């Protein structure tokens, strides 16, 4: 009993080691992937410890110091209310990464479940679920999210709901495709014949095979969600001022473009850097885990 336990533990440890080795190999081989990983880790760290390292309050107005150009005291300058831009950018990372992660997780869970069920069940279940996916894919994603968020009422929470609702179909399609090709394999037949319970069949045989493509799409998707969040907030359908959300900050700075170019450019650069990080990481993951998959998802 004890030996069985410990050998199980060893297997897990060995698997973990192989996975870490794969990741390290990937980072060593491709400097751009490493750069992406560094950007993402840096932003994550910033989001967590940001409030500790920033000396200013992101909301406190300091009107005498409004529209200050970048300087030693305000490395990215100040905005139209004299608030320190660097501080607000650092706080903004929390919204972007938080929403990005939440929305992507919901999409992955819903999309993967639908894809697994659709691919495995086949027949009318598959037909119904795939037509639902088609209906969703008949709309340009950002437009649908825009309308849903707008009708629910402009707020960060409603934006999150809107983005989560519209983007899962990509996962459903990819997972369904993988399941269709896997379920005809002999080892799945064999497992079914020896009476493996359905739950175990899903967990042991189907799920592991769809994890790679899902992981790749999810990483790239994080970037697009960050972009969509900022874009819709920019239009006015997400975070409302004075929330230090990047898109909202950019929208607030547009009247001051002439005198103070840094107000729109600081959040703009922050958004780009974040998206770039996820894209670099996603590209690297794809090359390593899923070299044949070439499609990219650019929508929302």
């Amino acid at each position, binding site marked *: 009993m004890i030996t069985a336990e410990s050998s199980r533990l060893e297997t897990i440890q060995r698997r973990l080691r192989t996975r870490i080795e794969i990741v390290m190999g990937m980072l060593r081989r491709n400097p*751009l992937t490493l750069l992406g990983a560094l950007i993402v880790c840096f932003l994550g760290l910033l989001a967590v410890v940001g409030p500790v390292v920033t000396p200013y309050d992101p909301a406190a107005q300091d009107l005498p110091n409004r529209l200050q150009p970048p300087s030693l005291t305000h490395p990215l300058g100040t905005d139209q209310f004299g608030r320190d831009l660097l501080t607000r950018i650092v706080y903004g990372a929390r919204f972007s990464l938080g929403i990005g992660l939440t929305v992507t997780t919901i999409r992955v869970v819903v999309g993967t479940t639908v894809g697994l069920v659709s691919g495995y069940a086949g027949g009318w279940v598959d037909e119904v679920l795939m*037509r*639902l996916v*088609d*209906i969703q894919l*008949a*709309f*340009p*994603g*950002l*437009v*649908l999210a*825009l*309308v*849903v968020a*707008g*009708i*629910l*009422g402009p707020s960060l929470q409603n934006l999150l709901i809107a983005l989560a609702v519209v983007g899962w179909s990509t996962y459903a399609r990819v997972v369904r495709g993988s399941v269709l090709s896997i379920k005809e394999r002999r080892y799945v037949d064999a497992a079914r014949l020896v009476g493996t319970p359905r739950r175990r069949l899903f967990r042991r045989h189907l799920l592991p095979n769809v994890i790679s493509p899902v992981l790749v799409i999810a990483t790239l998707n994080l*970037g697009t969600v960050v*972009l969509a969040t*900022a*874009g819709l907030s*920019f*239009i*006015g*359908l997400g975070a409302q001022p004075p929330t230090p959300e990047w*898109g909202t900050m*950019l929208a607030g700075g*547009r009247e001051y*473009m*002439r005198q103070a*170019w840094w107000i*729109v*450019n600081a*959040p*703009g*650069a922050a*958004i*780009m*850097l974040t*998206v*770039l990080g996820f*894209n*670099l990481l996603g590209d690297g993951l794809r090359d390593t885990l899923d070299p044949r998959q*070439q499609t*990219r998802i*650019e*929508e*929302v």
Partner: protein
Amino acid sequence: MISRAYLLYRTATSLVVLGGVSVLTFGLTFLTPGDPARTVLRKQYGQTPSPTVVEAFREKHGLDEPLVVQYVDWLIGVLQGDLGNSYISGRPVVELLAEALPPTLQLSTAALVVALVVAVPAGVLSAVHQGGWIDTLSQLAALIGVSMPNFWLGYLLIILFSLQLSLFPVAGNDGFSHLVLPAVALGTGMTAIITRLVRMSLLEVLDEPYVKTARSKGLSERIVVYKHALRNALIPVVTIVGLQFGFLLSGAVVVEVVFQRPGLGVLLVDAVFARNYPVVQGAVLLMAVLFVLTNALVDLTYQYLDPRIQLGGSQV
């Protein structure tokens, strides 16, 4: 050729999807928390409306009917080309859409032209000089291009070319000079995607046996690349360009807001904020129809360009 069974299946599923699209489009507006009539009036007048006003509004726009009746009425109208009237101006939605569509199509087409003109040569150069500095540079540019928020790029262009250099107007829609900056802002993301795609696709094709044959015949590299390889390499580009049309439409919404350029995007955003439901429904429906039509068109073009592809078969 396309089999009859596939066409039938495709038509049937398209009808089902279009039905779903209409239900979803119509249903969207009922996501509103609370009573739509009251919300609309409060948005319009800035205060809580009196019950008689609400009642009159409901009656006028048929909001007192059961939901199913409202949907059927709306659908019958849609099929006859009547999308209702704007809550605010009272003008027919069809008229508003007819005014807004051309500038948006203009912008999207211009963006597409920008993308193709830059991306195809860049992708070819990248592939031909694989690993060289041109390749590295163009791949880096493409990476930055896909990661660039188009609204930020719009402001960068305005700051540089309008405010500093005074080369182009800041905003509006009046002739070619107003189209340049928005088209670049909208086209950059697409440029990046197509550059990567052309590069990858050409590299793949250059590995094919028939390219080796062409080379061993002693044809010049120029003819091998442009006459033999590039044609085939561009086939997947057609698909992606088509599939990314929705991406362009979505992007146009944001870019129109940045440049305060009239079009479908500004119309939709204004209508969403004002809770002008007939206009929201009309604009969303129009975008979905455009999107679905392009995708169908892409499927057919794809097969025409590459006869090896058999539509249907295992899919049906």
